[in-house]
């Protein structure tokens, strides 16, 4: 294999040299340290010696030409190379004592894009002096600004962009990026409207000026409120909502729970509420009807393997929907613990991004506000949502006799693109059956 001989760096600061004379011809045999060429540079005239023994196979740079340090000037076929014993390791590019003239950066430094980590710890945000100054000068509420800097830091440019866009007006300042906030929300209204989804309105009314009368209180829209609003509108627009309801006799469940709760609290340090029973029943039914546990994906429907139950947790001014991961692998105790943990952390403001992602079906405990009927909005992109209403004692006809039973309504909104009435009816019947069968044999653990 031919050794490349490069233009050496002859002297400090020298970047090029001229081959003033070749002292060898192609075919000549040279010994190590034999002179190969006379080279002229800005600083010196010197003879360039060979660093290997061999035969000159090609002269690349003609006499009189000036080339940069590090340029290939000739090839020498090393004598050992043809002898068979020489290892191919005999340095392929030895010679010239020096590096190429310019230190160009290696071409392939990958372009690193800025990962936008979402802001979780809003209240702990630290601001640079420039951000504080600018926001004060322009009356910008930094809690409503989403940062694009490292770790979601609000940068001076973020604030400047708002100023350049005309300031932080409630209707306009928070842009699409805000949607990244991992908040979903659930309707809490008890107003029943038509179960048939209406066609989505073509454009949301944005710029209608709403008059503020004297004495009216103007409450600024926080970024979380804005997110909730956007998510609601989006879900309502995209998913054609259908609605259905069953009523369930949970007298046995109530009895069982009342009997077990004392020991449970003592043993687990946790109140045994009704919600884990409902979630357990939903999860079991979802296993039977996996289509309910799915999502609309434009040209396909994705049936999710994992069953992750989103639960709605309200705070004073917002609604969060943390997720019980792998709820199908949990006992009632496991679910109870997960509910308790998520609720506590929601109220403490300590939810992580992970806590709020991955839900496949939502259970909403509207009964806790005393509601007996609700029409929830689907937590997109899930396919359905179920709300558990208040348990109330009512006279019920059983075997043609009137009995006082503990009754509960289960309301379900479904994405009619994915699901139809039939499957949902079967699903609800399955949930109902499981709940009504709760009794002394039900396993808590």
């Amino acid at each position, binding site marked *: 294999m031919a050794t490349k001989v490069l233009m050496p760096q002859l002297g400090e600061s020298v970047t090029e040299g001229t081959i003033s004379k070749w002292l060898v011809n192609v075919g000549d045999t040279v010994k190590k340290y034999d002179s190969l060429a006379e080279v002229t540079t800005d600083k010196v005239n010197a003879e360039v010696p060979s660093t290997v023994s061999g035969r000159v196979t090609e002269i690349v740079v003609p006499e009189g030409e000036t080339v940069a340090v590090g340029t290939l000037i000739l090839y020498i076929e090393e004598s050992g190379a043809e002898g068979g014993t020489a290892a191919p390791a005999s340095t392929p590019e030895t010679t010239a004592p020096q590096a190429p003239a310019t230190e160009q950066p290696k071409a392939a*430094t990958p372009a690193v894009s800025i990962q936008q980590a979402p802001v979780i710890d809003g209240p702990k945000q630290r601001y640079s002096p420039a951000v504080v100054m600018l926001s004060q000068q322009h009356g910008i509420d930094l809690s409503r600004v989403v940062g694009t800097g490292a770790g979601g830091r609000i940068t001076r440019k973020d604030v400047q962009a708002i100023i350049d866009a005309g300031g932080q007006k409630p209707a306009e300042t928070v842009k699409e990026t805000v949607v990244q906030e991992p908040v979903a929300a659930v309707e809490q209204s008890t107003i029943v409207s038509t179960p048939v989804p209406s066609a989505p309105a073509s454009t949301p009314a944005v710029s209608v000026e709403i008059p503020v009368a004297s004495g009216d209180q103007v409450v600024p829209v926080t970024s979380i409120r804005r997110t909730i609003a956007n998510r609601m509108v989006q879900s309502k627009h995209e998913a054609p909502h259908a609605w259905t309801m069953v009523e369930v006799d949970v007298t046995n469940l109530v009895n069982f729970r009342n009997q077990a709760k004392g020991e449970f609290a003592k043993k687990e340090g946790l109140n045994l509420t009704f919600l884990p029973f409902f979630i357990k029943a939903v999860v079991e039914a979802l296993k039977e009807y996996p289509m309910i546990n799915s999502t609309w994906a434009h040209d396909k429907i994705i049936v999710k393997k994992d069953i992750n139950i989103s639960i709605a947790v309200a705070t004073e001014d917002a609604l969060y929907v943390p997720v019980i991961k792998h709820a199908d692998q949990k006992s009632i105790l496991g679910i109870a613990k997960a509910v308790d943990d998520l609720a506590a952390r929601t109220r403490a403001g300590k939810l992580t991004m992970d806590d709020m992602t991955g839900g496949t079906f939502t259970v909403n405990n509207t009964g806790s506000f005393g509601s007996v009927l609700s029409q929830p909005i689907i937590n997109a992109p899930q396919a359905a949502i179920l709300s558990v209403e208040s348990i109330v004692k009512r006279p019920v006809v059983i075997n043609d006799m009137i009995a006082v039973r503990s009754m509960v309504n289960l309301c379900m909104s479904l994405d009619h693109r994915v699901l139809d009435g039939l499957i949902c009816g079967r699903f609800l019947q399955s949930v109902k059956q499981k709940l009504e069968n709760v009794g002394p044999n039900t396993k808590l653990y």
Partner: protein
Amino acid sequence: MAVISFIDAITMAMREEMRRDSNVFILGEDVGVRGGVFRATNGLIDEFGEERVIDTPLAESAIVGVGIGAAAYGMRPIAEIQFADFIMPAVNQIVSEAAKMRYRSNNDWHCPITIRAPFGGGVHGALYHSQSVEAMFTNTPGLKVVAPSTPYDAKGLLKAAIRDEDPVLFFEHKRCYRLIKGEVPEDDYVLPIGKADVKREGTDITVISYGLTLHFCLQAAEKLAQEGISAHVLDLRTLYPLDKEAIVEAASKTGKVLIVHEDNKEGGVGGEVAAIVAEHCLFDLDAPIKRLCGPDVPAMPYSPPMEKYFMLNPEKVLEAMRELANF
């Protein structure tokens, strides 16, 4: 307009000034017949004779001290220190004498000397042919310290230094000598000492540098532009007194400041630049002021991997710039 190398711009400036003013003369080691070890005075002895291109004895304090005496009398000496590393024996003459002559005499005497010194590494010069010594002189009121990065600036600033009524220490990065080429007008022009120069306009981050590393910053800025990061690059050009106005303006523009120099970090020029930014730009700052500098070791080692480790390069600068942009 001709494209010439940095060192040719230096030679051109001296030749023009020597033709213009018979008081201008050169003294130093090997500056005459040899034309300087870097060839900066190449050909000047042929045109101006050994009276004005003086090969001195090998003694730096005398090169500067004799120059000071001549300057005080009214000449315009250009003293060449062969390598900035060898300037140490002359420090007393520069700092105690040249820099203080006007002040100590209450403006009676002054000292218009120019002291040229090649500095910086990346040329396999090891510990004593690679140093950046500028920080030793940049707290000496009375002295001006200049370090151009382009051939155009080199010519304009060297001519300004020669015409300046006060002592100017003129640092030339020896790696720039033949690596950096640029357009240089044939005409007589001078550039103001004490003025920094925006070498690239940008909006995301401000990079402040001088000498060879300025070019690394420009190369990195070019690459980052492809990533959508816009860098504002300020060339200090004069290291003392600093152009505070330009520094404040450049820093305020983006609120993110990276200072880059080959000299080691602690006690370097960058520290002063950072202090100016900290004093004047607090409410414009959007990130900590960052410095990317040579390591705090005595000097640059000879062995190539060690030298490479010591030296900054476009990749290192790029990384620091990107990190700051992403902050």
